[in-house]
C-alpha cells in the first residue's frame, strides 16, 4: 500500500461497534469490568482509551513503528521519553534544539542527576567527541529549529550503536510523511503533534513512536505513571487532522520552496535557511534521508529594524508562536520559541535579533510573498 493510502487506511479508522467512519470520542474516565480475575481491555482512560488507541495505532503506522503513545503536548512527550533515564545518565543533544527541550534538559533533568552536552550535530565527529562513559541517549533534531541544520541520521545511528546509546529524534518539522527515522535505525521518534500532524493550530498534543518492544514498555509505563495524556476530544482532532497530512504537506512544501527562492533574491535578506535550496549545506543529506524538505524556513534580514518592520506590517501572516498549521505563521525565535535559551547561547547558535522563522500554510503563495515585501 502506498504511503498516501496508509495515512487514511491503517486499520484503526472504522469503529467496530456502529461502523462509523470516524472513531467515536470516548469521553469516559473508567470502564465497567465484567470479571474480577480478567480485566477488560480498557479499565481506566489514563491506562488506555479507545479514541486515544486509534490515534496511537495510526501514529505507529505512519512512522513505520510498532508502538505509539500520545501525550498532552510535545513537551509532555519529550519529558516522558526522557524519564526512561535515571540519575547519573548523560545525554548528547543537538545544539540548536527546540527551546522547550533545552529548558527541560537544563532545568529539570539536570536536577535529577541527568547531564547533557549540546553539540553541533552537522558534524558527526562532534557527537563522538561528546560521548562519555555514562552517555545513554542521543537526542537529535533534523532539520533543527530554527536554523534548519541537517544531521546525517544514519551516521548518527552508527555512532550511537557503537557506544550503546538510545537514539531519539524530534521529527516535528518533517512529519512522518517526509521523514521516517525508525527506518534509518533511530530508536524513538517524538512529535509535537500540535504542529503538522494536527495541522490546524487547534489542538495541543504530543507523540512518541518506537519499534522496540523494550523501549515501548518503558515509555508506556511512564505514560501511565506520569499521566500526561491527551483527552479523547484532542485525540479525535489529531486523527481528523492526520487525514489531510499528505495533501497539506505537499502544498505547504511547494509554497515554502517558492518563498525560499524569492527571499534568496531580495537585497534586504542576508541569509535564507531552507534545506530544499540546493546550496543549503545539508541539502544532499536530507535528500538522501527524507522525501521532502518540509514547510518551515528561516531567514535573516540585514538589520534588526527590517525584521521588526516585517513583523509589524504583515497582514496575511499571523505573528504567533507555533508552526505547522494551515495558516501561515511568522515567528520571532529570540522572543518566542527560543526565549528560554540564555542570550549568550543564542548568539553562539546564530539565533539573533534579525532571524525570522516562517511556517508556510495553505494560503496562495503569491499572497504570502506580497505580504512579506517591504512596504
Amino acid at each position: 500500500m502506498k504511503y498516501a493510502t496508509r495515512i487514511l487506511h491503517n486499520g484503526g479508522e472504522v469503529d467496530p461497534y456502529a461502523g462509523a467512519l470516524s472513531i467515536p470520542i470516548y469521553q469516559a474516565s473508567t470502564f465497567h469490568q465484567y470479571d474480577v480475575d480478567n480485566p477488560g481491555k480498557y479499565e481506566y482512560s489514563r491506562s488506555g482509551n479507545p479514541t486515544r488507541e486509534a490515534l496511537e495505532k495510526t501514529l505507529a503506522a505512519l512512522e513505520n513503528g510498532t508502538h505509539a503513545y500520545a501525550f498532552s503536548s510535545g513537551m509532555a512527550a519529550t519529558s516522558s521519553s526522557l524519564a526512561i533515564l535515571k540519575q547519573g545518565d548523560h545525554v548528547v543533544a543537538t545544539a540548536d534544539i527546540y527551546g522547550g527541550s533545552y529548558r527541560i534538559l537544563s532545568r529539570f533533568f539536570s536536577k535529577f542527576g541527568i547531564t547533557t552536552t549540546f553539540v553541533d550535530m552537522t558534524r558527526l565527529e562532534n557527537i563522538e567527541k561528546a560521548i562519555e562513559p555514562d552517555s545513554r541517549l542521543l537526542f537529535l533534531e533534523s532539520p533543527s529549529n530554527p536554523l534548519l541544520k541537517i544531521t546525517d541520521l544514519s551516521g548518527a545511528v552508527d555512532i550511537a550503536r557503537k557506544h550503546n546509546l538510545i537514539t531519539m529524534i524530534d521529527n516535528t518539522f518533517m512529519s512522518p510523511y517526509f521523514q521516517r527515522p525508525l527506518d534509518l535505525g533511530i530508536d524513538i521518534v517524538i512529535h509535537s503533534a500540535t504542529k503538522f500532524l494536527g495541522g490546524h493550530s487547534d489542538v495541543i498534543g504530543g507523540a512518541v513512536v518506537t519499534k522496540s518492544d523494550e523501549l515501548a514498555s518503558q515509555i508506556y509505563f511512564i505514560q501511565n505513571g506520569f499521566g500526561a495524556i491527551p483527552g479523547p476530544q484532542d485525540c479525535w482532532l489529531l486523527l481528523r487532522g492526520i487525514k489531510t497530512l499528505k495533501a497539506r504537506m505537499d502544498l505547504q512544501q511547494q509554497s515554502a520552496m517558492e518563498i525560499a527562492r524569492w527571499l534568496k533574491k531580495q537585497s534586504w535578506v542576508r541569509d535564507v535557511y531552507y534545506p530544499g535550496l540546493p546550496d543549503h549545506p545539508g541539502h544532499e543529506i536530507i535528500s538522501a534521508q527524507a522525501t521532502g524538505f518540509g514547510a518551515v524556513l528561516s531567514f535573516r534580514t540585514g538589520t534588526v529594524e527590517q525584521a521588526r518592520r516585517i513583523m509589524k506590517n504583515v497582514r496575511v501572516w499571523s505573528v504567533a508562536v507555533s508552526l505547522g498549521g494551515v495558516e501561515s505563521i511568522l515567528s520571532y525565535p529570540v522572543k518566542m520559541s527560543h526565549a528560554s535559551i540564555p542570550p549568550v547561547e543564542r548568539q553562539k547558535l546564530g539565533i539573533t535579533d534579525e532571524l525570522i522563522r516562517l511556517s508556510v500554510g495553505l494560503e496562495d503563495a503569491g499572497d504570502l510573498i506580497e505580504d512579506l515585501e517591504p512596504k
Partner: protein
Amino acid sequence: MKIETILAHAGLCTDEITGAISTPIYQTATFRHPAVGVSTGYDYSRTINPTREALEKTMAELEKGRRGFAFASGMAAITAVLMLFSSGDHLIVSDDLYGGTYRLFDKIFKQLGIQVTYVDTSNAALIREAIIPERTRGLFIETPTNPLMKITDLGELTGLAASKRLLTIVDNTFMTPCLQRPLEFGVDMVVHSGTKYLGGHNDVLAGVVVTRSLELSDKIGFIQNSTGGVLGPLDSWLVLRGLKTLALRIEKQQQNAEKIAEWLTQNRIVKQVYYPGLSDHPGHCIHKRQSTGFGAMLSFRVPDAAWAEKIINRIKLITFAESLGGVETLITYPVKQTHGDIPVEIREKIGVTDDLLRLSIGVEHVEDLIEDLEQAMAAKEQRP
C-alpha cells in the same frame, strides 16, 4: 462568598464580547500577537489557555489558594509537584495511599534519586521519627487515606513541617474543597485527581494543583509549562461544568454514604467498616474538627477473598470499575485494581488485603443501593 455560590458561578461570563454564560471552549493551540512584543496575555495554549484558566482560577478560589493549575490527569498533577524536588531529596509519604502515587514514587522518581519513607501519617510521632535531618524536604499525605480512610491531623502536620522546613502536600481528592481546605491549615499545596468528584461524571480525566504561596505558584507554573502535562480545553470545560453541581452531588453522596456505612456495620458478613463518619472510627474527632463532612468513600472487610469476589460478581446496579467520585456508585477491589502496583508485602502490612472492598457512593436512591448490596451479600443466591 460561600462555596456553593463560587461553584455555581464557576467560569461564569468570562466572554465579554458575547456575554455567553458558559466559558467558551478555546480549541486553539496558539494566539495571534497584535504586534511584536505585544501579547493579548495568551501566546500558546500549553502556557495558558482561556478555558483552562477559568478552571484554574475557580480551583484557586475554592481551595483558598493563590493559584490553581490544571493537568492532564491526577498523576500528571502529582508528577508536576514532584518535579519541585531534586536528586538526593527525601520525602515522607502516607503508607496507605493510591497505588498510582506509590508507583510514581517507587518506580520513576526513585530512579531519579528521590528517596521516600512510607509511614502511617495518622501518627505524628512516626512522621517525626522518619525525618532525616538536612535531607527530608517534603511530606505527601492523603487524609482520609485510600482505601483505609485513616485521618491525619492537618494542624499538627503543618506545625511539625514548619519546624523542620518541610513542604507539605495533601491529596484532597476524597474530600474536595467543599468539605476540606487543607491550605487553610497551612498546607503548602493541594493536589486533586479532578477525574473524581470535581468532574463528577466519570467522563473526563484531569488533575489539579493549588498553591498557597507566590513562590510555589511561580515554580509550579514553570513546571506546568515546561513539562507540558496540561489539560485540554474541552476537558477543562467539562470539569468546570462538573464543578457547578459539586456541592449538590457531594451532599447527596455523603448522605447516602452515611446510611450505607451504618447498614454495613449491621451486616453479618462485614468484619469491619472504614468510614470516618462512624463515631467509633479512630480519626472521627480529628476529621470532624478539620472538615465539614465525611465524604462518600468507604471501605469494608468481608470474611475472605471468595466473599469479595462473590459480591463483585453478584452486584447488579453498582458498577464494578476503577475510579471514584462520580454520580454512579462504583465498587472497587483495591488489591486487583487501584492498589495492584503496591507490592504484596506492603499491602499486607498496611491491611490492603484481598478481603477488602471499596465503595464510591453515587447519587442513586440509597434504598436501591442497599438492596443491591443486600442481595450480593446474602448467604444464598436469591432467585428472581
